[in-house]
Protein backbone atom coordinates (compact mmCIF):
# COMPACT_ATOMS: atom_id res chain seq x y z
CA UNK A 1 0.00 0.00 0.00
CA UNK A 2 1.21 3.49 -0.75
CA UNK A 3 2.41 5.51 2.15
CA UNK A 4 1.10 9.03 2.57
CA UNK A 5 2.81 11.66 4.66
CA UNK A 6 0.62 14.27 6.32
CA UNK A 7 1.70 17.22 8.38
CA UNK A 8 -0.35 18.19 11.44
CA UNK A 9 0.47 21.58 12.92
CA UNK A 10 2.16 23.78 13.97
CA UNK A 11 -1.04 25.75 13.57
CA UNK A 12 -3.98 23.39 13.51
CA UNK A 13 -7.59 23.85 14.65
CA UNK A 14 -7.26 20.89 16.99
CA UNK A 15 -3.85 21.68 18.41
CA UNK A 16 -3.85 23.55 21.68
CA UNK A 17 -0.15 24.31 21.46
CA UNK A 18 2.16 24.71 18.49
CA UNK A 19 3.94 21.51 17.50
CA UNK A 20 4.32 19.85 14.16
CA UNK A 21 3.78 16.15 13.61
CA UNK A 22 4.72 14.43 10.37
CA UNK A 23 2.64 11.29 10.16
CA UNK A 24 3.40 8.65 7.55
CA UNK A 25 0.17 6.75 7.02
CA UNK A 26 -0.33 3.35 5.49
CA UNK A 27 -4.09 3.39 4.97
CA UNK A 28 -5.59 4.35 8.31
CA UNK A 29 -2.59 3.24 10.29
CA UNK A 30 0.37 5.31 11.34
CA UNK A 31 3.51 3.78 9.94
CA UNK A 32 5.91 6.33 11.30
CA UNK A 33 5.72 9.59 13.20
CA UNK A 34 8.18 12.46 13.25
CA UNK A 35 7.97 15.79 14.95
CA UNK A 36 9.32 19.30 14.84
CA UNK A 37 9.27 21.28 18.05
CA UNK A 38 10.47 24.60 19.32
CA UNK A 39 7.68 26.90 18.12
CA UNK A 40 7.24 28.11 21.66
CA UNK A 41 10.93 28.66 22.41
CA UNK A 42 11.20 31.98 24.23
CA UNK A 43 14.85 32.06 25.27
CA UNK A 44 14.06 31.86 28.99
CA UNK A 45 17.42 30.23 29.88
CA UNK A 46 19.33 33.12 28.31
CA UNK A 47 16.99 35.65 29.89
CA UNK A 48 17.68 34.11 33.32
CA UNK A 49 21.38 34.91 32.96
CA UNK A 50 20.54 38.58 32.57
CA UNK A 51 18.25 38.87 35.61
CA UNK A 52 18.68 38.55 39.35
CA UNK A 53 17.80 35.35 41.21
CA UNK A 54 14.63 36.93 42.58
CA UNK A 55 13.49 38.03 39.12
CA UNK A 56 14.31 34.57 37.78
CA UNK A 57 11.88 32.90 40.19
CA UNK A 58 9.02 34.73 38.49
CA UNK A 59 10.47 34.10 35.05
CA UNK A 60 10.83 30.33 35.47
CA UNK A 61 7.39 30.20 37.07
CA UNK A 62 6.12 31.26 33.66
CA UNK A 63 7.79 28.39 31.77
CA UNK A 64 4.51 26.52 32.15
CA UNK A 65 1.02 27.78 32.89
CA UNK A 66 0.00 24.59 34.68
CA UNK A 67 3.03 23.29 36.57
CA UNK A 68 4.32 26.78 37.36
CA UNK A 69 5.03 25.93 41.01
CA UNK A 70 7.09 22.92 39.85
CA UNK A 71 9.52 25.12 37.94
CA UNK A 72 9.76 27.79 40.62
CA UNK A 73 10.41 25.16 43.30
CA UNK A 74 12.98 23.25 41.24
CA UNK A 75 14.80 26.55 40.65
CA UNK A 76 14.82 27.85 44.23
CA UNK A 77 15.87 24.42 45.53
CA UNK A 78 18.97 24.58 43.33
CA UNK A 79 19.78 28.15 44.42
CA UNK A 80 19.29 27.26 48.10
CA UNK A 81 21.62 24.28 47.74
CA UNK A 82 24.37 26.47 46.26
CA UNK A 83 23.89 29.14 48.93
CA UNK A 84 23.81 26.50 51.69
CA UNK A 85 20.42 27.67 52.94
CA UNK A 86 18.29 25.45 55.11
CA UNK A 87 14.67 26.50 54.74
CA UNK A 88 12.36 26.33 57.80
CA UNK A 89 10.23 23.15 58.08
CA UNK A 90 6.98 25.12 57.77
CA UNK A 91 8.20 26.56 54.45
CA UNK A 92 8.92 23.01 53.20
CA UNK A 93 5.39 21.98 54.12
CA UNK A 94 3.80 25.00 52.41
CA UNK A 95 5.80 24.30 49.24
CA UNK A 96 4.67 20.69 49.32
CA UNK A 97 1.07 21.72 49.94
CA UNK A 98 1.00 24.03 46.92
CA UNK A 99 2.77 21.35 44.84
CA UNK A 100 0.13 18.76 45.66
CA UNK A 101 -2.78 21.16 45.11
CA UNK A 102 -1.19 21.94 41.75
CA UNK A 103 -1.12 18.22 40.98
CA UNK A 104 -4.87 17.98 41.72
CA UNK A 105 -5.59 20.86 39.36
CA UNK A 106 -3.34 19.42 36.65
CA UNK A 107 -4.67 15.84 36.85
CA UNK A 108 -8.32 16.96 36.88
CA UNK A 109 -7.59 19.17 33.89
CA UNK A 110 -5.96 16.24 32.10
CA UNK A 111 -8.89 13.95 32.83
CA UNK A 112 -11.24 16.49 31.27
CA UNK A 113 -9.07 16.94 28.18
CA UNK A 114 -8.79 13.16 27.80
CA UNK A 115 -12.58 12.90 27.97
CA UNK A 116 -12.95 15.65 25.40
CA UNK A 117 -10.50 14.02 22.98
CA UNK A 118 -12.51 10.80 22.95
CA UNK A 119 -15.83 12.58 22.58
CA UNK A 120 -16.84 12.21 26.23
CA UNK A 121 -17.48 15.89 26.87
CA UNK A 122 -19.62 15.26 29.93
CA UNK A 123 -16.46 14.13 31.68
CA UNK A 124 -14.77 17.37 30.62
CA UNK A 125 -17.61 19.46 32.09
CA UNK A 126 -17.70 17.47 35.33
CA UNK A 127 -13.94 17.44 36.00
CA UNK A 128 -13.44 21.08 35.11
CA UNK A 129 -16.32 22.06 37.38
CA UNK A 130 -14.72 20.11 40.23
CA UNK A 131 -11.32 21.57 39.40
CA UNK A 132 -12.70 25.00 40.29
CA UNK A 133 -12.64 23.91 43.95
CA UNK A 134 -8.84 23.56 43.90
CA UNK A 135 -8.39 26.67 41.77
CA UNK A 136 -10.33 28.68 44.35
CA UNK A 137 -8.26 27.17 47.17
CA UNK A 138 -5.01 28.09 45.37
CA UNK A 139 -6.31 31.62 44.82
CA UNK A 140 -7.26 31.87 48.50
CA UNK A 141 -3.82 30.77 49.72
CA UNK A 142 -1.57 32.46 47.20
CA UNK A 143 -3.68 35.18 45.60
CA UNK A 144 -3.51 33.55 42.17
CA UNK A 145 -5.19 30.67 40.35
CA UNK A 146 -1.96 30.00 38.45
CA UNK A 147 1.59 31.38 38.84
CA UNK A 148 1.26 31.38 42.61
CA UNK A 149 4.38 33.38 43.44
CA UNK A 150 4.67 31.55 46.76
CA UNK A 151 8.38 30.70 46.52
CA UNK A 152 11.35 32.83 47.35
CA UNK A 153 14.99 31.96 47.91
CA UNK A 154 15.05 30.78 51.53
CA UNK A 155 11.41 29.76 51.94
CA UNK A 156 7.93 30.93 51.02
CA UNK A 157 6.30 34.36 50.91
CA UNK A 158 2.92 33.69 52.51
CA UNK A 159 1.84 31.73 55.51
CA UNK A 160 -1.24 29.54 55.65
CA UNK A 161 -3.90 30.51 58.23
CA UNK A 162 -6.02 28.17 60.34
CA UNK A 163 -9.09 29.27 58.39
CA UNK A 164 -7.40 28.41 55.09
CA UNK A 165 -6.41 25.01 56.46
CA UNK A 166 -10.06 24.35 57.34
CA UNK A 167 -11.15 25.38 53.84
CA UNK A 168 -8.51 23.20 52.15
CA UNK A 169 -9.65 20.29 54.27
CA UNK A 170 -13.27 20.75 53.20
CA UNK A 171 -12.29 21.21 49.54
CA UNK A 172 -10.18 18.07 49.54
CA UNK A 173 -13.08 16.03 50.99
CA UNK A 174 -15.37 17.25 48.22
CA UNK A 175 -12.86 16.54 45.46
CA UNK A 176 -12.12 13.10 46.88
CA UNK A 177 -15.82 12.18 46.68
CA UNK A 178 -15.88 13.32 43.06
CA UNK A 179 -12.68 11.45 42.19
CA UNK A 180 -14.17 8.24 43.63
CA UNK A 181 -16.94 8.68 41.08
CA UNK A 182 -14.38 9.17 38.28
CA UNK A 183 -12.59 6.02 39.35
CA UNK A 184 -15.92 4.23 39.09
CA UNK A 185 -16.39 5.72 35.60
CA UNK A 186 -12.87 4.74 34.55
CA UNK A 187 -13.15 1.17 35.81
CA UNK A 188 -16.80 0.40 34.97
CA UNK A 189 -17.81 2.48 31.97
CA UNK A 190 -17.47 -0.04 29.13
CA UNK A 191 -17.33 2.54 26.30
CA UNK A 192 -14.54 4.49 27.93
CA UNK A 193 -12.52 1.35 28.68
CA UNK A 194 -12.94 0.07 25.12
CA UNK A 195 -12.00 3.46 23.69
CA UNK A 196 -8.81 3.82 25.74
CA UNK A 197 -7.54 0.25 25.95
CA UNK A 198 -4.64 -0.80 23.73
CA UNK A 199 -4.37 2.74 22.35
CA UNK A 200 -0.90 4.29 22.35
CA UNK A 201 0.89 1.20 23.61
CA UNK A 202 4.33 1.76 25.14
CA UNK A 203 6.08 -1.31 26.53
CA UNK A 204 8.08 -1.06 29.74
CA UNK A 205 11.23 -1.77 27.74
CA UNK A 206 10.55 1.12 25.35
CA UNK A 207 9.51 3.42 28.18
CA UNK A 208 12.89 2.85 29.84
CA UNK A 209 14.85 3.11 26.60
CA UNK A 210 13.12 6.34 25.53
CA UNK A 211 13.23 7.86 29.00
CA UNK A 212 9.48 8.12 29.68
CA UNK A 213 8.81 9.72 33.07
CA UNK A 214 5.95 10.62 35.36
CA UNK A 215 2.50 9.07 34.89
CA UNK A 216 3.48 8.11 31.31
CA UNK A 217 6.35 5.96 32.56
CA UNK A 218 4.45 4.69 35.62
CA UNK A 219 1.58 3.46 33.41
CA UNK A 220 4.19 1.34 31.60
CA UNK A 221 5.20 -0.23 34.93
CA UNK A 222 8.27 2.01 35.39
CA UNK A 223 8.30 2.40 39.15
CA UNK A 224 9.90 5.82 39.60
CA UNK A 225 8.72 8.92 41.40
CA UNK A 226 11.11 11.69 42.43
CA UNK A 227 8.98 12.38 45.51
CA UNK A 228 9.86 8.95 46.87
CA UNK A 229 13.24 8.26 45.21
CA UNK A 230 14.90 11.65 45.65
CA UNK A 231 12.73 13.34 48.31
CA UNK A 232 12.70 17.12 48.49
CA UNK A 233 10.62 19.65 50.46
CA UNK A 234 8.53 17.70 53.03
CA UNK A 235 8.05 14.48 51.05
CA UNK A 236 10.35 12.46 53.29
CA UNK A 237 7.81 12.98 56.13
CA UNK A 238 4.78 11.87 54.11
CA UNK A 239 3.34 8.45 53.73
CA UNK A 240 2.21 7.67 50.17
CA UNK A 241 2.16 5.00 47.54
CA UNK A 242 3.62 5.37 44.04
CA UNK A 243 0.87 4.31 41.64
CA UNK A 244 1.99 2.12 38.75
CA UNK A 245 0.05 0.14 36.19
CA UNK A 246 0.93 -2.47 33.61
CA UNK A 247 -1.67 -1.73 30.93
CA UNK A 248 1.01 0.35 29.12
CA UNK A 249 -1.70 2.21 27.15
CA UNK A 250 -3.87 5.33 27.43
CA UNK A 251 -6.22 3.43 29.73
CA UNK A 252 -3.31 2.68 32.09
CA UNK A 253 -2.30 6.36 32.04
CA UNK A 254 -5.85 7.29 33.07
CA UNK A 255 -5.83 4.79 35.94
CA UNK A 256 -2.45 6.06 37.17
CA UNK A 257 -3.65 9.66 37.24
CA UNK A 258 -6.92 9.00 39.05
CA UNK A 259 -5.01 6.75 41.45
CA UNK A 260 -2.50 9.53 42.07
CA UNK A 261 -5.32 11.95 42.82
CA UNK A 262 -6.46 9.71 45.69
CA UNK A 263 -2.89 9.55 47.04
CA UNK A 264 -2.60 13.32 46.77
CA UNK A 265 -5.78 13.96 48.82
CA UNK A 266 -4.28 11.82 51.54
CA UNK A 267 -0.95 13.64 51.31
CA UNK A 268 -2.67 17.04 51.61
CA UNK A 269 -4.44 15.81 54.78
CA UNK A 270 -1.11 14.66 56.22
CA UNK A 271 0.49 18.02 55.38
CA UNK A 272 -2.34 19.95 57.08
CA UNK A 273 -2.14 17.75 60.16
CA UNK A 274 1.64 17.64 60.51
CA UNK A 275 2.52 21.19 59.44
CA UNK A 276 4.96 22.51 62.05
CA UNK A 277 4.68 26.00 63.49
CA UNK A 278 7.45 28.51 63.01
CA UNK A 279 8.98 30.94 60.53
CA UNK A 280 8.33 30.57 56.81
CA UNK A 281 11.62 31.88 55.41
CA UNK A 282 15.25 32.51 56.23
CA UNK A 283 17.12 35.55 55.02
CA UNK A 284 18.87 34.83 51.75
CA UNK A 285 21.88 36.71 50.40
CA UNK A 286 21.34 38.78 47.27
CA UNK A 287 24.60 37.49 45.79
CA UNK A 288 24.88 33.72 45.58
CA UNK A 289 28.38 32.23 46.05
CA UNK A 290 29.96 30.38 43.13
CA UNK A 291 28.78 26.80 42.80
CA UNK A 292 26.39 24.53 40.99
CA UNK A 293 23.42 22.36 41.83
CA UNK A 294 21.11 19.92 40.12
CA UNK A 295 17.52 19.93 41.34
CA UNK A 296 14.70 17.49 40.61
CA UNK A 297 10.98 17.89 41.18
CA UNK A 298 8.11 15.52 40.47
CA UNK A 299 5.81 17.76 38.45
CA UNK A 300 2.31 16.48 37.57
CA UNK A 301 3.62 15.42 34.14
CA UNK A 302 6.82 13.86 35.45
CA UNK A 303 10.26 14.74 36.64
CA UNK A 304 11.22 18.37 36.09
CA UNK A 305 14.94 19.14 36.36
CA UNK A 306 16.82 22.39 36.80
CA UNK A 307 20.56 22.97 36.79
CA UNK A 308 21.83 26.25 38.20
CA UNK A 309 25.39 27.54 38.22
CA UNK A 310 26.23 30.59 40.31
CA UNK A 311 29.26 32.86 39.88
CA UNK A 312 29.20 34.95 43.06
CA UNK A 313 27.06 37.75 41.65
CA UNK A 314 23.34 38.38 42.00
CA UNK A 315 22.70 36.83 38.58
CA UNK A 316 23.15 33.16 37.70
CA UNK A 317 25.89 32.09 35.29
CA UNK A 318 23.67 29.42 33.76
CA UNK A 319 20.17 28.06 34.25
CA UNK A 320 19.22 24.86 32.46
CA UNK A 321 15.63 23.66 32.49
CA UNK A 322 14.36 20.33 31.23
CA UNK A 323 10.59 20.15 31.47
CA UNK A 324 8.92 16.73 31.69
CA UNK A 325 7.21 16.93 28.31
CA UNK A 326 10.50 17.09 26.43
CA UNK A 327 11.55 13.83 28.05
CA UNK A 328 8.22 12.20 27.17
CA UNK A 329 8.01 13.31 23.55
CA UNK A 330 10.40 10.65 22.24
CA UNK A 331 7.90 8.11 23.56
CA UNK A 332 4.94 9.81 21.86
CA UNK A 333 6.37 9.00 18.42
CA UNK A 334 6.68 5.36 19.46
CA UNK A 335 3.15 5.27 20.92
CA UNK A 336 1.64 6.47 17.66
CA UNK A 337 3.25 3.77 15.53
CA UNK A 338 0.78 1.13 14.33
CA UNK A 339 -2.14 3.06 15.82
CA UNK A 340 -5.04 4.46 13.85
CA UNK A 341 -4.98 8.07 12.77
CA UNK A 342 -8.20 8.45 14.78
CA UNK A 343 -6.26 7.68 17.95
CA UNK A 344 -3.73 10.47 17.45
CA UNK A 345 -5.69 13.05 19.51
CA UNK A 346 -5.93 10.93 22.62
CA UNK A 347 -2.33 9.75 22.27
CA UNK A 348 -0.99 13.26 22.15
CA UNK A 349 -4.06 14.64 23.94
CA UNK A 350 -3.53 17.95 22.15
CA UNK A 351 -4.29 16.99 18.55
CA UNK A 352 -7.83 16.47 17.31
CA UNK A 353 -8.54 14.08 14.42
CA UNK A 354 -9.92 16.70 12.10
CA UNK A 355 -10.52 14.50 9.05
CA UNK A 356 -12.08 17.27 7.02
CA UNK A 357 -8.89 19.25 7.44
CA UNK A 358 -6.55 16.38 6.71
CA UNK A 359 -8.59 15.29 3.71
CA UNK A 360 -8.28 18.74 2.24
CA UNK A 361 -4.57 18.71 2.81
CA UNK A 362 -4.24 15.44 0.91
CA UNK A 363 -3.50 15.22 -2.78
CA UNK A 364 -4.54 11.82 -4.04
CA UNK A 365 -2.40 10.80 -6.93
CA UNK A 366 -2.83 8.11 -9.51
CA UNK A 367 0.60 6.70 -8.80
CA UNK A 368 2.29 4.78 -11.56
CA UNK A 369 0.11 6.41 -14.25
CA UNK A 370 1.64 8.78 -16.76
CA UNK A 371 1.71 12.30 -15.45
CA UNK A 372 0.75 11.26 -11.86
CA UNK A 373 -2.48 13.26 -12.20
CA UNK A 374 -4.76 13.95 -9.25
CA UNK A 375 -8.10 12.07 -9.13
CA UNK A 376 -11.47 13.80 -9.05
CA UNK A 377 -13.84 12.85 -6.22
CA UNK A 378 -16.28 10.87 -8.47
CA UNK A 379 -13.37 9.09 -10.10
CA UNK A 380 -11.99 8.16 -6.73
CA UNK A 381 -15.39 6.86 -5.58
CA UNK A 382 -15.77 4.76 -8.73
CA UNK A 383 -12.22 3.45 -8.28
CA UNK A 384 -13.00 2.49 -4.68
CA UNK A 385 -16.21 0.62 -5.63
CA UNK A 386 -14.41 -1.24 -8.42
CA UNK A 387 -11.47 -2.07 -6.12
CA UNK A 388 -13.83 -3.71 -3.58
CA UNK A 389 -15.91 -5.48 -6.27
CA UNK A 390 -12.78 -7.16 -7.63
CA UNK A 391 -12.17 -8.52 -4.14
CA UNK A 392 -15.68 -9.95 -3.85
CA UNK A 393 -17.30 -7.10 -1.93
CA UNK A 394 -20.25 -5.85 -3.92
CA UNK A 395 -22.82 -3.50 -2.49
CA UNK A 396 -24.81 -2.97 -5.71
CA UNK A 397 -27.46 -5.54 -4.63
CA UNK A 398 -27.71 -3.96 -1.21
CA UNK A 399 -28.03 -0.51 -2.73
CA UNK A 400 -30.92 -1.69 -4.91
CA UNK A 401 -32.68 -3.27 -1.94
CA UNK A 402 -32.20 -0.08 0.05
CA UNK A 403 -33.65 2.05 -2.79
CA UNK A 404 -36.69 -0.27 -2.95
CA UNK A 405 -37.18 -0.06 0.78
CA UNK A 406 -37.09 3.74 0.68
CA UNK A 407 -39.62 3.74 -2.17
CA UNK A 408 -42.03 1.54 -0.20
CA UNK A 409 -41.63 3.74 2.84
CA UNK A 410 -42.51 6.86 0.91
Amino acid at each position, binding site marked *: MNKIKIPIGPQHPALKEPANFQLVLEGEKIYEA*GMRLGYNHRGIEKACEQRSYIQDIYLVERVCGICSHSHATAFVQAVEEIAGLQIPPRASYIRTLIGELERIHSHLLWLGVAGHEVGFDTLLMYTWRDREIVMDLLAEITGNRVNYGINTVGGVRRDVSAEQIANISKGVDAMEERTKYYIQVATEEATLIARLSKVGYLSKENAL*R*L*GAIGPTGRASAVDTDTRR*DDPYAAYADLNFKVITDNHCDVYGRTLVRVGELMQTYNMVRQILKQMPEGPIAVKAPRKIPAGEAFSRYEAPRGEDVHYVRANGTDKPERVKIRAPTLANLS*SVAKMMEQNYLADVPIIIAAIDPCFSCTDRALVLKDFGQPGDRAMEWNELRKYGIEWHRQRGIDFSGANKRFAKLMEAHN
Partner: protein
Amino acid sequence: MSATKEEEISGRLSAQFPFLAGQVKIQRARRLWVETSPENFDAVFNGLVEKFGFNSLCTITGLDEGEYFGLLYHLAKEDGTVASLKVRVARHNPKWKSIGNKFPGGIIYEREIADLLGVQFEGLPPGPRYPLTDNWPAGQYPLRKDWQNTNVLPKNGGGA
Protein backbone atom coordinates in the same frame (compact mmCIF):
# COMPACT_ATOMS: atom_id res chain seq x y z
CA MET B 1 31.47 4.71 60.91
CA SER B 2 30.24 2.95 57.80
CA ALA B 3 30.52 4.66 54.42
CA THR B 4 27.43 6.27 52.93
CA LYS B 5 26.16 4.96 49.60
CA GLU B 6 27.61 8.05 47.88
CA GLU B 7 31.04 7.39 49.42
CA GLU B 8 30.80 3.79 48.36
CA ILE B 9 30.04 4.75 44.73
CA SER B 10 32.86 7.31 44.81
CA GLY B 11 35.30 4.72 46.19
CA ARG B 12 34.32 2.10 43.62
CA LEU B 13 34.59 4.65 40.81
CA SER B 14 38.10 5.70 41.86
CA ALA B 15 39.14 2.04 42.20
CA GLN B 16 37.84 1.16 38.76
CA PHE B 17 39.06 4.33 37.05
CA PRO B 18 42.29 5.44 38.82
CA PHE B 19 42.43 8.59 36.67
CA LEU B 20 39.26 9.81 38.44
CA ALA B 21 41.11 10.17 41.76
CA GLY B 22 40.18 13.58 43.17
CA GLN B 23 37.63 14.16 40.37
CA VAL B 24 34.59 12.76 42.17
CA LYS B 25 32.79 15.21 44.43
CA ILE B 26 29.95 14.40 46.82
CA GLN B 27 27.96 17.62 47.16
CA ARG B 28 25.17 16.25 49.33
CA ALA B 29 23.12 13.08 49.75
CA ARG B 30 22.30 11.60 46.31
CA ARG B 31 24.41 14.11 44.35
CA LEU B 32 27.77 13.19 42.78
CA TRP B 33 29.78 15.30 40.39
CA VAL B 34 32.41 13.62 38.22
CA GLU B 35 34.76 15.20 35.72
CA THR B 36 36.61 13.27 33.05
CA SER B 37 38.87 13.96 30.09
CA PRO B 38 37.49 13.46 26.55
CA GLU B 39 39.71 10.36 26.08
CA ASN B 40 38.26 8.63 29.13
CA PHE B 41 34.68 9.76 28.61
CA ASP B 42 33.41 6.56 26.95
CA ALA B 43 34.83 4.30 29.64
CA VAL B 44 33.41 6.36 32.50
CA PHE B 45 30.04 7.01 30.83
CA ASN B 46 29.52 3.35 29.93
CA GLY B 47 30.78 2.28 33.34
CA LEU B 48 28.29 4.54 35.15
CA VAL B 49 25.41 3.35 32.98
CA GLU B 50 26.20 -0.36 32.86
CA LYS B 51 28.09 -1.15 36.07
CA PHE B 52 26.85 1.46 38.51
CA GLY B 53 23.17 1.45 37.54
CA PHE B 54 22.93 5.09 36.40
CA ASN B 55 20.63 4.00 33.61
CA SER B 56 18.47 7.05 33.15
CA LEU B 57 19.58 10.24 31.43
CA CYS B 58 17.84 13.25 33.02
CA THR B 59 19.24 15.73 30.55
CA ILE B 60 22.47 17.18 29.15
CA THR B 61 23.51 20.69 30.14
CA GLY B 62 25.76 22.72 27.87
CA LEU B 63 28.00 25.39 29.42
CA ASP B 64 30.06 28.17 27.88
CA GLU B 65 33.31 28.24 29.86
CA GLY B 66 35.37 30.48 27.64
CA GLU B 67 38.11 28.34 26.06
CA TYR B 68 35.92 25.29 26.45
CA PHE B 69 32.33 24.16 26.27
CA GLY B 70 31.33 22.04 29.22
CA LEU B 71 28.89 19.20 28.75
CA LEU B 72 27.19 17.80 31.83
CA TYR B 73 25.47 14.45 31.51
CA HIS B 74 23.02 14.14 34.41
CA LEU B 75 22.59 10.41 34.99
CA ALA B 76 20.16 9.07 37.56
CA LYS B 77 19.90 5.79 39.39
CA GLU B 78 16.65 4.20 40.54
CA ASP B 79 17.44 5.01 44.17
CA GLY B 80 17.46 8.73 43.39
CA THR B 81 21.23 9.25 43.18
CA VAL B 82 22.32 11.56 40.36
CA ALA B 83 25.83 11.57 38.92
CA SER B 84 26.62 14.59 36.77
CA LEU B 85 29.44 13.59 34.45
CA LYS B 86 31.32 16.51 32.99
CA VAL B 87 33.51 16.63 29.90
CA ARG B 88 34.97 19.67 28.18
CA VAL B 89 35.39 20.22 24.44
CA ALA B 90 37.59 22.92 22.94
CA ARG B 91 35.81 26.05 21.71
CA HIS B 92 37.94 26.28 18.55
CA ASN B 93 36.84 22.79 17.49
CA PRO B 94 33.47 22.18 19.13
CA LYS B 95 32.91 18.59 18.06
CA TRP B 96 31.68 15.80 20.28
CA LYS B 97 30.01 12.41 19.89
CA SER B 98 26.35 11.53 20.18
CA ILE B 99 25.08 9.16 22.86
CA GLY B 100 21.87 8.70 20.86
CA ASN B 101 22.47 5.00 20.25
CA LYS B 102 22.50 4.34 23.99
CA PHE B 103 19.81 6.88 24.96
CA PRO B 104 17.46 7.68 22.04
CA GLY B 105 15.74 10.15 24.38
CA GLY B 106 19.03 12.08 24.56
CA ILE B 107 18.97 13.00 20.86
CA ILE B 108 16.69 15.98 21.47
CA TYR B 109 19.01 17.26 24.24
CA GLU B 110 21.97 17.06 21.84
CA ARG B 111 20.06 18.90 19.13
CA GLU B 112 19.27 21.62 21.66
CA ILE B 113 22.96 22.05 22.55
CA ALA B 114 23.92 22.02 18.86
CA ASP B 115 21.42 24.82 18.17
CA LEU B 116 22.00 26.99 21.22
CA LEU B 117 25.71 26.48 21.94
CA GLY B 118 27.09 25.31 18.60
CA VAL B 119 28.61 21.99 19.70
CA GLN B 120 28.34 19.52 16.82
CA PHE B 121 27.50 15.95 17.79
CA GLU B 122 28.91 13.33 15.46
CA GLY B 123 26.61 10.38 14.93
CA LEU B 124 23.42 12.38 15.49
CA PRO B 125 20.74 10.92 13.18
CA PRO B 126 19.29 13.24 10.53
CA GLY B 127 16.19 15.10 11.64
CA PRO B 128 14.73 18.55 12.23
CA ARG B 129 16.63 21.05 14.32
CA TYR B 130 15.54 21.98 17.83
CA PRO B 131 14.54 24.53 19.10
CA LEU B 132 15.45 27.41 16.77
CA THR B 133 13.57 28.34 13.62
CA ASP B 134 14.44 26.92 10.22
CA ASN B 135 15.54 30.35 8.98
CA TRP B 136 17.75 31.12 11.98
CA PRO B 137 21.00 32.66 10.71
CA ALA B 138 23.97 30.28 10.57
CA GLY B 139 26.70 30.68 13.16
CA GLN B 140 24.46 32.39 15.74
CA TYR B 141 24.49 30.48 19.02
CA PRO B 142 22.38 32.29 21.64
CA LEU B 143 23.68 30.53 24.74
CA ARG B 144 27.29 31.53 24.08
CA LYS B 145 28.33 34.23 26.53
CA ASP B 146 29.53 36.59 23.80
CA TRP B 147 26.22 36.42 21.95
CA GLN B 148 23.90 39.44 21.95
CA ASN B 149 20.35 39.46 20.66
CA THR B 150 21.27 42.46 18.53
CA ASN B 151 23.20 39.94 16.39
CA VAL B 152 19.91 38.81 14.92
CA LEU B 153 17.52 41.67 15.64
CA PRO B 154 17.39 44.73 13.40
CA LYS B 155 19.50 47.62 14.71
CA ASN B 156 16.43 49.73 15.51
CA GLY B 157 15.20 47.04 17.89
CA GLY B 158 12.65 45.51 15.53
CA GLY B 159 9.21 44.40 16.57
CA ALA B 160 6.06 46.44 16.63
